[in-house]
């Protein structure tokens, strides 16, 4: 049984003058011990999805349809108290900005102990011992436990948060851009940490990020989102080597690969304004391969024989399109048209 099953989730934000559509029917599943990457750029809905799973959405968010089934239970249907008992113990969140997530007036150790004791009947001493073991296993010195958040470096704070999140060995970790504020060397160490945690605790993880390199290092599968929808999904190596959606192709080719800006792809235009639902494929205005049917009909997310999924009318020709997508000219030549259409 999948640890997490998101089924056709539709979420909008209520704003002045109407609504902004954040998720347009998103479905995904994560099995035990699996690390799934969720990638996409600004406004794609990945953060909304992460928060929806943990019921951390802001007040103006409206869940219009869909389910979030965790270990067989629809989290969206639970009472607050029921959900609170599961949060942290069974599913935990590692947020982006460690400094704003740790209480500045309590020592870090006390916060870990609080997290443990709010879900398990242990004495303070026992909890402290657990915290100590935990910190050592994530390569944090014991004295970090006695420090305040501002006394630790960015990397140490992030690791402290990871420590708190896994203190109770949750089955699912939702990790939101954990390495943005960290330097490259610490980033690599943090990602290794997650792999160790998966090995030791068989935790499943949803890794939300825009960093494709990190995804490649850490994830088994990847889901690509655009304008509130899942447009492609599959095994990590499949996505990078054989992307089937033009947007994924554009992203992969936008990652620097050495000297020369001439080789880098830049996708012209911008993601759509989500105040109005798109008529056809949301990416069509920026897609170098778009045809009539692309602007007329929203493509279905189809299952592929190798287990992947893609939502594109042209997916049969993806091999041919991939070759063209590698050339920056393919994208830049439609620059003016893309800008006009968005």
């Amino acid at each position: 049984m999948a640890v997490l099953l998101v089924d056709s989730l539709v979420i909008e934000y209520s704003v002045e003058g109407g609504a902004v559509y954040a998720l347009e029917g998103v479905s995904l599943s994560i099995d035990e011990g699996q690390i799934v990457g969720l990638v996409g750029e600004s406004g794609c809905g990945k953060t909304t999805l992460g928060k929806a799973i943990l019921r951390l959405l802001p007040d103006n968010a409206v869940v219009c349809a869909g389910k979030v089934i965790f270990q067989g239970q629809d989290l969206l249907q639970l009472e607050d108290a029921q959900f609170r008992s599961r949060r942290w113990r069974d599913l935990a969140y590692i947020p982006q900005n460690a400094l704003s997530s740790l209480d500045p007036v309590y020592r870090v150790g006390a916060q870990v102990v609080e997290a443990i004791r709010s879900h398990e009947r242990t004495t303070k001493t026992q909890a402290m011992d657990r915290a100590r073991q935990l910190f050592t296993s994530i390569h944090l010195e014991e004295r970090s436990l006695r420090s305040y958040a501002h006394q630790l470096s960015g990397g140490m704070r992030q690791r402290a948060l990871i420590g708190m999140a896994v203190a109770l060995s949750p089955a699912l970790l939702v990790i939101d851009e954990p390495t943005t504020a960290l330097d490259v060397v610490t980033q690599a160490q943090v990602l290794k940490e997650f792999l160790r945690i998966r090995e030791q605790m068989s935790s499943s993880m949803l890794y939300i990020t825009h960093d494709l390199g990190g995804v490649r290092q850490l994830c088994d599968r990847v889901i690509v989102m655009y304008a509130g929808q899942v447009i492609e999904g599959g095994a990590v190596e499949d996505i990078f080597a054989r992307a089937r959606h033009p947007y994924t192709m554009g992203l992969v080719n936008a990652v620097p690969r050495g000297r020369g800006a001439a080789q880098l792809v830049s996708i012209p235009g911008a993601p759509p304004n989500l105040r109005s639902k798109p008529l056809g494929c949301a990416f069509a205005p920026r897609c170098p391969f778009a045809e009539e049917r692309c602007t007329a009909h929203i493509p279905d997310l189809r299952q592929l024989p190798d287990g992947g999924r893609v939502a594109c009318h042209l997916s049969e020709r993806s091999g041919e399109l991939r070759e063209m997508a590698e050339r920056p000219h393919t994208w830049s030549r439609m620059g003016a048209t893309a800008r006009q259409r968005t």
Partner: protein
Amino acid sequence: MTLRSTSPEYTTPVMEVRELKRYFRPRGRGHGPVRAVDGVSLTLHRGEITGLLGESGSGKSTLGEVMVGLQWPTAGEILSRGMPVERGMSRSRWREFRRQVQIMFQNPFEAVNPRFRLLDVVSEPLELNGVPRSERGEQVVSALERVGLSPPSEFLDRYPHELSGGQLQRACIARALMLGPSVLIADEPVSMLDLSVRAGILTLLEKLKFAQNMAVLLISHDISTLVVVSDRLAVMYLGKIVEAGATDEVIATPSHPYLQVLLNSVPTVHKSLFAQDKDGLDLKGDIPDAGNIPPGCRLWPRCPLAEEICRAEIPELRLLKGTDSHVVACHLLQEQSEP
């Protein structure tokens, strides 16, 4: 590879800093000064992009701000087109310096007045320098064309929040170019932009270094970004440059342990961007505070190869034998290098 003309205009540095230091006052009793920039020497040339690589805490942004005149150095020299920049210089020379060296920042939304339309954002430098209103419009239109915001008429009346990050960053570049500077300091210009938009900005900088006949100092913590457009690379750690040289050279033969570990740690999407050794060196611990800089070589507490001399003496930048300009500051490379 870029061919640089051998005329003096190109071979003399358009900007130079020598042993630049910027210290901040200590936090309290018993603490030393915060040595954000601790003896940095750099030369910038027209038609060249110099990449400055450093993580947060390395002093890279402070260096950029000192070089553009937003902060005074604690010690050291700054030369702009051969002219010293120092306290007590004449007002007209100071203004000339401020025109010659311009800067752009990481977050374009924080770098512009949200109540200004783009026309006003980009023409502000002209206004501050007494260019009559009647002439400003034309110059702004031409600048917007140059940075790819085309047709300009579509952008002039828009407010910052109506633009995407990439578009606004282009507008910031246009603003920085208005006075025809000889140096553009770009501090993390693409870090906050979506991946698919970054290439456009980097290509633009590459184009402009020749079109505007200027030097670009590209500051970033992301080596992948720097490698794309930098002609030369300098690596900063805790306030000092530890390795520098032509980009191809430095990437092919990283010599300082810090750079080696860094290149090993970069998660890559495309193979063979750097030669990576997954089981190779790693650094212990975290980067120390700039208020608590270790004695000797700053890296020694974390360096797996550290020896006694590393703790005792600060290594100088030395030229690696057999290279034109590849310099490294590491005691372990005494044999392979010369002063």
